[in-house]
């Protein structure tokens, strides 16, 4: 059974990603307009929107490969002007290096991050020992994902679902501060999609468990998806990007931003639980005839403050001492 979001007390104090008035255009074509987002640590945020509205453009701005034309994207206060170790990415296609086996693909990041080219050439024996360690770690992770039998296979020899699982392992083993998933399940069949969605729920469950232990949640994820059902199922927050609003001539902006129901991996997949929210998203994000102001459904932080106040213990009466 889905439950409403738990209310971590310090969500606003631990912001991993901040987008401030992000705008982007290609020549005379305006794509993004005044996109404002704050993503706290440990959140799984789904980004939905009509095709071509600029979701991938926003993701690239966050990744740092295509910085915005105006506004800022900050990762723990540091501008995202180039891709680096702090952000992991899983693409829909071109997810793996074709010249490496599955195990080598997963271990690749450890090699690049922990050693240098000169170390690998000049201290070959030390590197060989470290390499065995990396491959053992990669093999363990692949085993957890049910891919131990395919770790010596090249990407060409793997199915689409297996490739995306390896790509996810490749990103997760690096423990990035922010994991970006750009329609990672778009090319997969229904059964494989559901399997991958369950994997994401596992990561959210690990976040929840970490919070309960008062530890830092390990995974902060932004997933771009076309599927609203998927967004509501795997994420704990849904953000809708759309050009269908009263100021559409300036480009797409955030027109929906609310919490999503929390599912646990063992919960049944109850799509009826969020039917009303789905209708709301369809109206706010996908209605081409919309002329409402874009901030009408943007209330995540307001709702969070309200929920925090309502779930906080009652303050003692004045003069009670």
């Amino acid at each position: 059974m889905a439950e409403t979001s738990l209310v971590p007390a310090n969500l606003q104090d631990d912001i991993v990603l901040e987008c401030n008035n992000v705008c982007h255009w290609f020549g005379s074509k305006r794509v993004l307009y005044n996109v404002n987002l704050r993503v706290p640590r440990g959140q799984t945020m789904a980004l939905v929107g009509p095709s071509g509205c600029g979701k991938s453009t926003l993701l690239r701005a966050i990744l740092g490969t295509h910085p915005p034309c105006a506004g800022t994207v900050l990762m723990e206060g540091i501008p995202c002007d180039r891709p680096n170790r702090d952000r992991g990415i899983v693409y829909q296609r071109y997810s793996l290096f074709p010249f490496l086996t599955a195990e080598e693909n997963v271990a690749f990041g450890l090699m690049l991050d922990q050693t240098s080219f000169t170390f690998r050439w000049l201290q070959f024996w030390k590197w060989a020992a470290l390499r065995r360690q990396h491959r053992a770690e990669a093999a363990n992770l692949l085993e957890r994902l049910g891919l131990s039998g395919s770790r010596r296979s090249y990407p060409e020899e793997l199915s689409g679902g297996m490739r995306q699982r390896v790509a996810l392992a490749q990103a997760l083993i690096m423990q990035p501060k922010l994991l970006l998933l750009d329609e990672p399940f778009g090319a997969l069949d229904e059964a494989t999609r559901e399997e991958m969605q369950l994997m994401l729920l596992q990561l959210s469950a690990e976040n929840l468990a970490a919070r309960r232990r008062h530890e830092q949640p390990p995974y902060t994820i932004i997933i771009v998806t076309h599927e609203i059902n998927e967004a509501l199922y795997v994420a704990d927050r849904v953000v809708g990007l759309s050009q269908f609003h009263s100021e559409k001539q300036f480009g797409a902006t955030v027109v929906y931003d609310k919490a999503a129901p929390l599912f646990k991996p063992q919960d049944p997949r109850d799509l009826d639980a969020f039917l009303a929210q789905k209708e709301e998203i369809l109206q706010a994000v996908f209605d081409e005839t919309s002329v409402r102001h874009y901030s009408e459904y943007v209330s995540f932080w307001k709702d969070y403050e309200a929920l925090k106040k309502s779930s906080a213990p009652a303050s003692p009466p004045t003069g009670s001492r």
Partner: protein
Amino acid sequence: MIIRQPISRAWRIGLGLAAIIFLLAAYTLLSRSRQEAVRAEQRDVAQQKIADLAEDRVRLQNEIQRATTREEGVREKMLMRLERELKELETQETRWRQLAGAPDAEDLTVPAWSQLYRQGLVRACTPQGSFQRKEVWIVHDFWNTAKRLVSALLIAVAVSLVLGLLMGCVDYVDAFFLPPFALLSKVPATAVLPIFFVLVQINFKMYIAIIVFSLLPTLAQSISQSVRKDIAEELIFKAYTLGASQFEVIWEVIYKQILPRIIDAARLQIGPALLLLVAAEWMVAGEGIGYRLRLFYQRTDMTVVFVYVIILGLIGLIVDYLLIWFRRWLCPWFGD
């Protein structure tokens, strides 16, 4: 039948063998017809000579008759000379009659298989030359040419790789090198040979310079294009997110991914490089395949020439297959 309908392996092998047999048969027929033509020509020449000698015989016999009427001292001298001339004429006549009956002329422009073997292969594989400077042509010539070719190819590939990678990765480098390379790659390499002969002395370095100059623009552009087209930018971005430095993106991602294309590009450049080298050796070398071909061309003796051509073709095939096998072994993920 539909376009690209596959055929069985047996058909493929059978048709391939049939093509080779056809080529061999065509050569045999050509060679035989050339031999026949040369023999017919020899017969005609012999008949003409016999006719000329018959006229000379009549003339000599008349002179012998006139000499018998001369005075004693002069007559004997004249008769001795005329009889000597008559004997020589008879000897020549006998030789020409033999040639007319059994012409033995050999055409070496399209040699028969036996000539290719005896005067081509055997001669090329056995020590030739004067007592102190005997050499086995095939070993000497192929070794000298191979030294030049392999050295030049290694240098050309190494330099093209570095430049090609830089051109593919850095737009400034591409903008600088692309215009001259685009121009130079269109210049026929054989046309610049005289420039190299004049600018660089005729030595080992000249051959290297010629081959590197001709291969570098094409190979560098090919590698640069491969970097830009064969590598999705998403993979490069991903490498950065995995902690790769700029050098590691080029070496560990880009170079490794285009390595099979580099091997293929180098493999395809061996033919043009060898063509240019043989042309240069033909013109100015004192040793090597081109030099030997020039020597035998000047004698119109194609026996050694054909043998060298066949061996070059076979070596080329072997090297090609070796490189393909090498690419498959080094890059098993690339497939065929």
